[in-house]
């Protein structure tokens, strides 16, 4: 569902692992992080080949996003499960809102500018021209990457929901390059905190392996099937699903 919704699978995977497989939230977060590494690496290998992911920019932002992820991973170890449930519920509400807003972000006009040291250039067949872009406000983007990494390490999501709008609205990068660059970064962000969960013994091999294989197969199938489905209805459906899951998570968090 990720390509059509513009969000990673973690927001759906963690509630599934909690409510269906019934594993503790720390293990669910660890499983999700390892899954994020798999999907990000698979997608990035394609995006890098297509010259869409901006590697120099991605590497620069990884400096802060990895530090944020480590801090998030350490913080998660100190927090009780109930607090994490509550925080994840709040995150789901934010993701639902961002998912709806993303449609309008995608409609932003593309302005052509000189690439500079960190910018990029790619050919867009839909526009029928070469898109050239520079990178604005890098220090602010690095600060937001720190926050995105922190949320990723704390709650087991990729953090793309923060990175993509930040790259588009703050740095002025076209949405296609922003999505590919965010995806390129997510794997490294996830691994920074996944090592911490691994050291704590929270990466359960059987559940994680089955989840990774299932998600990889699902994303391969999704890229073939989903383009034929009308995206607006799916976004609306999942907006409702996310709000229901958010309510469940917050209620679990508030339960004594």
């Amino acid at each position, binding site marked *: 569902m990720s390509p059509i919704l513009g969000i990673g699978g973690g927001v759906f995977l963690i509630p599934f692992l909690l409510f269906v497989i019934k594993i503790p939230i720390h293990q669910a977060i660890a499983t999700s992080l*390892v899954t994020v*590494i*798999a999907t*990000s*690496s*698979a997608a*990035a*290998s394609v995006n*890098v*080949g*297509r*010259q*869409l992911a*901006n*590697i*120099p920019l991605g*590497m*620069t932002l*990884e*400096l802060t996003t*990895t*530090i944020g992820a*480590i801090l998030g*991973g*350490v913080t998660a*170890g100190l927090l009780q499960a109930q607090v994490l449930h509550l925080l994840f519920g709040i995150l789901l509400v934010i993701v639902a809102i961002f998912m709806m807003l993303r449609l309008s972000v995608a409609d932003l006009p593309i302005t052509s500018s000189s*690439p500079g*040291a960190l*910018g*990029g*250039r*790619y*050919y*867009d*067949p839909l526009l029928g021209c*070469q898109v*050239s872009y520079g990178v604005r406000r890098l220090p602010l983007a690095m600060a937001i990457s720190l926050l995105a990494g922190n949320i990723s390490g704390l709650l087991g999501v990729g953090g793309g929901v923060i990175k993509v709008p930040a790259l588009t609205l703050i740095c002025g990068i076209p949405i*296609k390059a922003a999505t590919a660059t965010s995806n390129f970064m997510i*794997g*490294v962000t*996830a*691994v*920074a*905190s*996944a*090592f*911490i969960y*691994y*050291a*704590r013994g929270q*990466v359960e*091999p*059987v559940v*994680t*392996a*089955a989840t*990774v*294989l299932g998600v*990889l197969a699902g994303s391969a199938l999704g890229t073939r099937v989903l383009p034929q489905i009308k995206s607006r209805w799916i976004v609306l459906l999942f907006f409702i699903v996310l709000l229901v899951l958010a309510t469940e998570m917050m209620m679990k968090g508030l339960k004594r």
Partner: protein
Amino acid sequence: MINQPEPHLKKFTTLLIQKTLLYGVVLSSIFLASGIALLLAHRKNLVWEHLWLFRHGIGVEPRDLLQWGLLILMFTPVVRVLMASIGFALDKRWRFVAVSLGVLMILMLSFFSNIK
């Protein structure tokens, strides 16, 4: 998207990163799928002769395969960062070599410092 050369990245660097990610995911998937298959076969008493040989002849347990698969997967982005630094060095883009090595150092700190 149609392949177009990026203004600031040589094809070799891109290829190095792309292949690292691809082979990392494929290799770890092979290990994970083999581990799951052996585990299922073991649980359902479907340990055929060749599986028995695989398990006892080489001495590999299903859980070992899963652990290896997960470690290969987790180290794929780390190797990708290393490859990027090599690619940037070959391109003589020293600023990004420093950035890549900085990221690599942070990842190594996360793994080796045993932070819990």
